[in-house]
């Protein structure tokens, strides 16, 4: 309800309520802004929970969870501008565009704000370091393995990717393709894009099943796409024929696992990711660590991250969820 409170404050335009809002923002806490691709995405909500967990652990940290409502770079830039204006201590961003944010983030760094990226990265000149949830290589290997595990005799698989404005999906698909020689019986027939829109992804999945009636699996390395694809498979009465797998959120995929539309899927733990990036941001903002190639930065309970030559680090491997453990996680994120 804090949000609603602020809105009410804004609405009254100068009513007494505003005084309290102004006071709220002013203290000596380390203010870390968690800028996400878009608000309302379950994945980022979970990351926020991790960030709050870290904040509680650290004690003197205030988390500002923010982002645009649609996945555009312009929206993120406006958000970042207002964060710069608020002189936050650190900005941790999951970028909608690796390049478009650079000028704003550079400005932030010039004004002494610690800038890091996580999940979906920013070009190196626009941040101090990047925390990938996992490495592209590990993810690429995982997603094809998830499909192959259930296709002992080989078969046809298709990829339903996300929006065109994020780099990571493409990197994962590339890594996946590089290990395809390990799966000689599996053919990747096509890659389509659902733009991270539920309806478009749904239609694309439908199109795949029409185009390839003998399709065996759909790999959707995106949480929106995988849910839509599972729904499309169920609606087409192809449960058991087409296995939907890829990267998804347990809470959103619980139904698909239950119905059998998806046998298994993977994801890193966004709670951990939010936790880890908050820890890193804190350490950098308080000058306890410095982002340089080879540096090791503490991530609290997640251990520590070692930066490579591009000042990037990977948090951990993706974790596989199936009917054996879905119930345990579906209420978590």
């Amino acid at each position: 309800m804090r949000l609603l409170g602020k809105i009410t404050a804004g609405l009254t335009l100068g009513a007494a309520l505003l005084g309290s809002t102004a006071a709220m923002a002013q203290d000596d806490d380390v203010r870390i802004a968690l800028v996400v691709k878009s608000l309302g995405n379950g994945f980022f909500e979970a990351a926020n929970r991790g960030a709050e967990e870290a904040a509680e652990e650290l004690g003197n940290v205030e988390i500002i969870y923010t982002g645009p409502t649609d996945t555009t770079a312009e929206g993120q830039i406006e958000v970042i501008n207002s964060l710069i204006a608020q002189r936050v201590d650190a900005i941790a961003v999951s970028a909608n565009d690796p390049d478009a944010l650079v000028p704003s983030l550079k400005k932030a760094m010039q004004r002494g704000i610690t800038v890091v990226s996580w999940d979906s990265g920013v070009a190196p000149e626009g941040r101090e370091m990047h925390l990938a949830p996992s490495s592209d290589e590990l993810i690429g290997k995982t997603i094809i393995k998830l499909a192959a595990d259930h296709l002992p005799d080989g078969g046809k698989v298709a990829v339903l990717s996300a929006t065109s404005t994020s780099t990571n999906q493409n990197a994962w698909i590339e890594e996946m393709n590089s290990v395809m020689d390990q799966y000689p019986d599996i053919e990747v027939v096509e890659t389509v894009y659902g733009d991270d829109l539920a309806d478009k992804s749904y239609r694309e999945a439908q199109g795949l099943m029409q185009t390839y009636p003998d399709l065996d699996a759909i790999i959707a390395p995106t949480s929106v796409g995988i849910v839509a694809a599972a729904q499309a498979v169920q609606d087409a009465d192809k449960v058991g024929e087409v296995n939907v797998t890829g990267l998804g959120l347990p809470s959103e995929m619980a139904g698909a696992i239950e119905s059998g539309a998806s046998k298994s899927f993977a994801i890193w733990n966004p709670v951990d990711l939010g936790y880890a990036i908050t820890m890193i941001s804190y350490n950098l903002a308080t000058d306890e660590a410095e982002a340089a190639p080879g540096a090791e930065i503490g991530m609290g309970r997640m251990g520590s991250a070692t930066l490579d030559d591009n000042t990037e680090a990977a948090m951990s491997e993706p974790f596989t969820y199936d009917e054996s453990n879905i119930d345990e996680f579906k209420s978590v994120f």
Partner: protein
Amino acid sequence: MITEFLKSREAILLAALVALILLVETRFAGFAAPSNMVDVFNDTSILIILALGQMAVILTKCIDLSLASNLALTGMVVATINAAAPGVPVAALILLAIALGMVLGAFNGILVWKLDIPPIVVTLGTLTIYRGIIFLISEGAWINAHEMSAAFKAFPRAEFLTLPVLSWIALAIIALFVVLIGRTGLGRAFYAVGGNPHAAVYTGISVGFTRFAAFVIAGGLAGLCGYLWVSRYAVAYVDVAGGFELDVVAACVIGGISIAGGIGTVGGAVLGALFLGVIKNALPVAGISPFWQLAISGAAIIIAVAFNARSERTKGRVILKSAEHAT
């Protein structure tokens, strides 16, 4: 009658639609198969319903840009209720969705009717307001498949006589509109108000009220679609159907409904929606990059409006007797 039909906009549009389907068929056998056509129709159902609502509004010389936001808001409301109280029967939720949609439409309508604010300004405002309210209700969170009750999700996809209920609803709305537009005083008043608002007053028709009624009808349909959309895709979030309002207007324009009001048919709106639906479904199947879709629908709108304008061009008054029959 038949020759007249053959000369009509609907016939030309139908021919274009069939040609388009056949064209895709040549690139990808099976597209024109009945089962796939049923899928395409089912997929386009929501667009058809909204296009019919928008048509009512456009006929009265107004426009409703808030339909997609209305859809998203009612969708979020019913999904929220369903998630919080799975026991509420789906029928009640559908009625609620329609009622809420009508209220949102009535808000537009009352501003247009009583305060005489141009419809484009009103609905441009409510377009963002309704969308924003979704965020206030949901705090941005999604409502996912597993939070919805099975009955809630099952209704639109349940099959009845080989067609999903969603398709049946679209067919029912089409039938309802044929009656509303063709056989009721209100339906004919839409044409009168849009075609000649000044003269409509002389026939005892209240221009303001007729517009208000059109907004309420369009709103009710958007509300219904709100439920259909969230249950069909089994997800509700702030950006549901973002930008869809323009698809709806595009369907109407392609269907030959004149933005200047007073001209258009139920068949046209349905065909216009189907035309866009076929394009959307055909592109991925025919192996054309989905990135072409936007440009193709844009071009289709321009061609359609140019074509319609040509056939609508006013003839002016013919004074010379010799010319009266020539034109």
